[in-house]
């Protein structure tokens, strides 16, 4: 048995950094805070790589088995239902460790340059440490409750970091929106957990996802609306994942979340947190695949739909971060779809492997794109494409790295995106031709909108900028490192490392699909080049001819408005307001009525105590007379 005891420090270090800098906030120098945070995540990164090398390459056995590196009882719900906090080492968690720690470390370094001079510099790094801790804890979770705990914590750090510029109303609103939307999705997750724990009596992944476990081999619970209870539970769990991963219809928070500092968008809203949903589905994949295939179909459908939907919106956006945000949504849709079409074990599990692979490569190139965008924004102080153009001369390092990332996301060989996307398309092709068609189209759209962005920013019209300069080394070095990853991560033999059941298999290179996908990507690139490389009005003309379609896409299919209508108009104004009114006027009114009736009755009764002595005498005497008569009637003599 290998010893992974040291992995506990991957969690402890960032948390200690968070606590230390958080409690002493205001007492420490901001630069010291940053140093502590970077040191913590740096060591954690080293340990993560160590764990990955040990797990994947120093492993003697044929297959990869899950190892619980640490575990202690955190909370006891009943004699049998115990919640542990522990560390689970298995292929996907180790893979995620590498992704998270690398990107997080890069973002930490990048941020020292990007956030320089910001008021909340120390606070920013404190929260970054919290996020790193939470995200690493999430992927290392051994059970559902642990994952939920860290799930919420990443949500919190996301909230805090989106709201970093808390003096800006739009940032505050975006943070609130992100938290509440994901919270609503988490409601489904929580109910799903409750259902699973009710049927299995455990939260532990090793029990739940055991292919020979009772959950999978036996049919449990009744059926509801034609689907088994387990399927519903798994759909609800996916609902949580969909919220975090911004799948339709919960995608609305992600574009708004771009209000946060750009490195945050790179780390949280591109590379790590938003793929937590994918990770969750992958974590529970055994159950999905073997016991709840209907739920998997739902996932595939939503993934495919979202990837197309988001890609369409991305085409029309003008804010560079928003384009990248929709691109992220679209790419995560890819991953979800791949999971959804995947089978279990062996080559049938290609979708799973491809999804994880894409998650891996996507983390590099999307983080790179965001950091590059951050570098651009740092230089021109604007998010809007219309304020940019011809930047390739001014920002050479940014330009080159950005181009690498753009090529990677478009699926041009030999960059990493090509390999992972190719596997996804192959998996889709093997399973469902319709999904393949959709994803194929999306691949073209992706290439188009990414190059539209690229050309608009780095080519296009020449502009003059006031004291523009390339970003400092603290920002460009992470760019180069990530660019290296984005370029060459595709050569990793992923199917030998990450599979559904831990047993490696060989993938075949699908030449036809590869050629076809490169072809459509190139088509997209050429169209983009034709429209945007030189300044021209052709694009506006096309937009005008598309008319209402263009408007609808530009307005993001009015999903935000629908949400706003439901929440503001229906829930707040209609339900909440009427309940508040009901409480004040009916319930409380009833209580007041009781009180007032008593008072009124006492006023009435008070008349008997009038203080009018004549009346008293009269009543008294009448009473005496009646009493006498009664007495005489009953006791005559």
């Amino acid at each position, binding site marked *: 048995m290998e010893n992974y005891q040291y992995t506990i420090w991957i969690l402890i270090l960032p948390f200690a950094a968070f606590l230390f800098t958080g409690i002493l906030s205001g007492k420490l120098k901001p630069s010291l805070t940053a140093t502590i945070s970077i040191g913590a995540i740096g060591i954690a990164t080293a340990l993560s790589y160590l764990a990955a090398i040990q797990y994947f390459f120093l492993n003697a056995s044929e297959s990869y088995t899950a190892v619980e590196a640490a575990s202690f009882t955190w909370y006891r*719900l009943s004699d049998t239902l115990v919640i542990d906090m522990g560390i689970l080492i298995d292929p996907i968690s180790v893979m995620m460790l590498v992704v998270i720690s690398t990107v997080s470390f890069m973002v930490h370094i990048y941020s020292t340059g990007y956030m320089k001079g910001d008021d909340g510099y120390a606070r920013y790094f404190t929260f970054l440490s919290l996020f790193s801790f939470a995200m690493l804890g999430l992927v290392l979770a051994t059970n559902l409750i642990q994952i939920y705990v860290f799930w919420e*914590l990443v949500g919190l750090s996301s909230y805090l970091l989106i709201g970093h510029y*808390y003096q800006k109303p739009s940032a505050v609103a975006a943070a609130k929106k992100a938290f509440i939307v994901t919270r609503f999705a988490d409601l489904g997750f*929580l109910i799903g957990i*409750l259902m699973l724990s009710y049927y299995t009596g455990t939260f532990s992944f090793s029990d739940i996802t055991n292919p020979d476990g009772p959950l999978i081999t036996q049919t449990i619970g009744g059926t509801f609306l034609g689907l088994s209870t387990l399927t519903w539970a798994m759909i609800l769990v996916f609902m949580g994942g969909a919220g975090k991963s911004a799948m339709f219809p919960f995608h609305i928070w992600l574009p708004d979340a771009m209000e946060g500092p750009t490195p945050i968008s790179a780390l949280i809203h591109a590379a790590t947190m938003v793929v937590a949903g994918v990770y969750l589905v992958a974590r529970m994949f055994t159950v999905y695949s073997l016991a709840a295939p209907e739920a998997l179909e739902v996932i595939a459908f939503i993934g495919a739909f979202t990837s197309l939907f988001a890609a369409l919106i991305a085409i029309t956006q003008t804010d560079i971060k928003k384009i990248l945000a929709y691109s992220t949504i679209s790419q995560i849709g890819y991953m979800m779809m791949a999971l959804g079409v995947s089978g279990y074990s062996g080559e049938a599990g290609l979708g799973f492997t491809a999804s994880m692979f894409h998650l891996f490569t996507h983390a590099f190139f999307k983080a790179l794109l965001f950091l590059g965008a951050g570098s651009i924004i740092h230089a021109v102080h604007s998010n809007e494409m219309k304020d940019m153009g011809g930047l390739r001369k001014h920002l050479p390092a940014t330009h080159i790295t950005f181009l690498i990332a753009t090529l990677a996301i478009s699926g041009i060989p030999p960059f990493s995106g090509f390999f992972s996307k190719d596997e996804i398309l192959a998996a889709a092709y093997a399973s469902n031709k319709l999904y393949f068609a959709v994803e194929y189209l999306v691949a073209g759209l992706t290439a188009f909108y990414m190059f539209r962005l690229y050309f608009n920013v780095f080519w296009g019209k020449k502009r003059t900028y006031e004291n523009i300069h390339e970003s400092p080394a603290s920002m460009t070095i992470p760019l180069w490192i990530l660019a290296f990853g984005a370029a060459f991560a595709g050569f990793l033999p992923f199917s030998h490392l990450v599979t559904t059941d831990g047993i490696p298999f060989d993938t075949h290179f699908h030449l036809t699909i590869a050629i076809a996908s490169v072809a459509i990507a190139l088509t997209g690139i050429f169209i983009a080049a034709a429209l945007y490389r030189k300044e021209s009005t052709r694009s506006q003309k096309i937009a005008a001819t598309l008319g209402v379609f263009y408007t609808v896409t530009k307005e993001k299919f009015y999903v935000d408005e629908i949400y706003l209508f439901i929440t503001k108009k229906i829930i*707040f104004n209609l339900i*909440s307001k009427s309940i508040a009114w009901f409480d004040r006027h009916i319930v*409380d009114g009833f209580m007041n009525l009781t009180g007032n009736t008593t008072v009124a009755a006492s006023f009435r009764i008070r008349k008997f105590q009038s203080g009018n002595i004549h009346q008293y005498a009269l009543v008294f005497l009448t009473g005496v007379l009646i009493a006498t008569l009664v007495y005489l009637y009953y006791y005559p003599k």
Partner: protein
Amino acid sequence: MYNLNILLLVPILTLAGIMFVKDARNARVVAAIGMSVQLVLVFVLLYMYLAERNAGNMEEVLFYQDITWYESLKISYTIGVDGIAVGLIVLTGIVIFAGVFASWLMKDLVKEFFFWLILLATGVFGFFISLDLFIMFVFFELAVIPMYLLIGIWGTGPKEYSAMKLTLMLMGASAILLVGILGIYFNSAPDGGAMTFNIIEISKVNIPIAAQRFFFPMVFIGFGVISALFPFHTWSPDGHASAPTAVSMLHAGVLMKLGGYGVLKVAIYLLPEAAGEMATFFLIFVAIGVIYGALSAVMQRDLKYINAYSSVSHVGLILFGLLMLTKTALDGAVLQMISHGLITALFFALIGMIYGRTHTRMVNEMRGLMKVMPFLSVAYVIAGLASLGLPGLSGFVAELAIFVGAFSHPEPFYRVITVIAVSSIVVAAVYILRVVAKMLMEGVKDESYNDLTDARWHEKLSVISLLLFIAAIGLAPLWLSDMIMSSLEPIIMRLN
């Protein structure tokens, strides 16, 4: 061996000290010293309790004392604690400690204020240690009645109205409760023999089912009203809004828990069969209250009203957990009592401190407080996060246990109602983040706010003492839940 009487003795000595100080300003010092001593004693109790349990003492209650007080009616001064009571005593100790420091700057009638405040706390401590129904009732009233004066004299807004409403509703409930308690007393010897008020004694007999059916609703509603049971919750928003800071803290933090504790130890423990039969009926009201309170909070503008309605919702979860009658849910309910006590006390303390500076409690009149008073704002955010059930803070563990316990009930109806109750956590996120966003974030709206100061030392002490325990329970819930769980054993035995 720990003598529980000391928990009453210290507050009483403090009361005497307050009465005899010359300078009214020194009353707060006396109160602070007294309550600090009390806090230490409370922790000594906790330590001694855990030590006894670890030493293998599995008595149902520890530190038991029984002094006959009124022979012919079998009323005796019976005291003793189990894990549940210890948890709630710790809560009370912390909240009253924080409350004294939160009202450090009280100006009018200082002596009288602290006198009534400590008297109220005395009643609460007495309530939690007593094992005799009659004595328990006496302490219950002792805790409720000072509230009238505290709100009526030191309150704000329509204080007389609120104080009267609160007192009348609670007194009305007490009247029902008294009937229920007497009903239990007169049925405490179904096979002949001596009737008794002693809870431990009564728990050994089976009260006839007809009597249980008759008296369970009385005891439940009697205790339920102080826990803001829908539809008898309307005293809570008005009362909290009018009450001075420390009183709101104590009331929402501790007094509302008396109801939950009473329901558990009297209604469920002594009348288990009726509890089993009628739980479904009351559960409907409780579940309505949970959602209803949360939705009402969304539309409120006054911070205290928001919090009061949120308390209706969260305390509703306590009753919800209790009525589920499963061990996990009961455990969660008790944890929720402690957790909500701390969180809501923190909320009211912060609201009081913010109000003391801005002189308004209207959310939309404030903006950008984060910039001017970072300490209070951060504490407010943490309180909010704890309240919406963020893991790592106490609210989460309590709510999780309630939901898991409720969901593990075999009846499908219970699971449906649990799902409804769970959805309140989303609404909680909405109303809490709304306040955080509107009040704390963005730029300062009113120029004069720039001159406001952050928390002073006594305010920090008050806030930190509460925050510390919220985090402690949230991060390491095991010892507390085990302590409660082992004490739930006799109740579970009775329920089966």
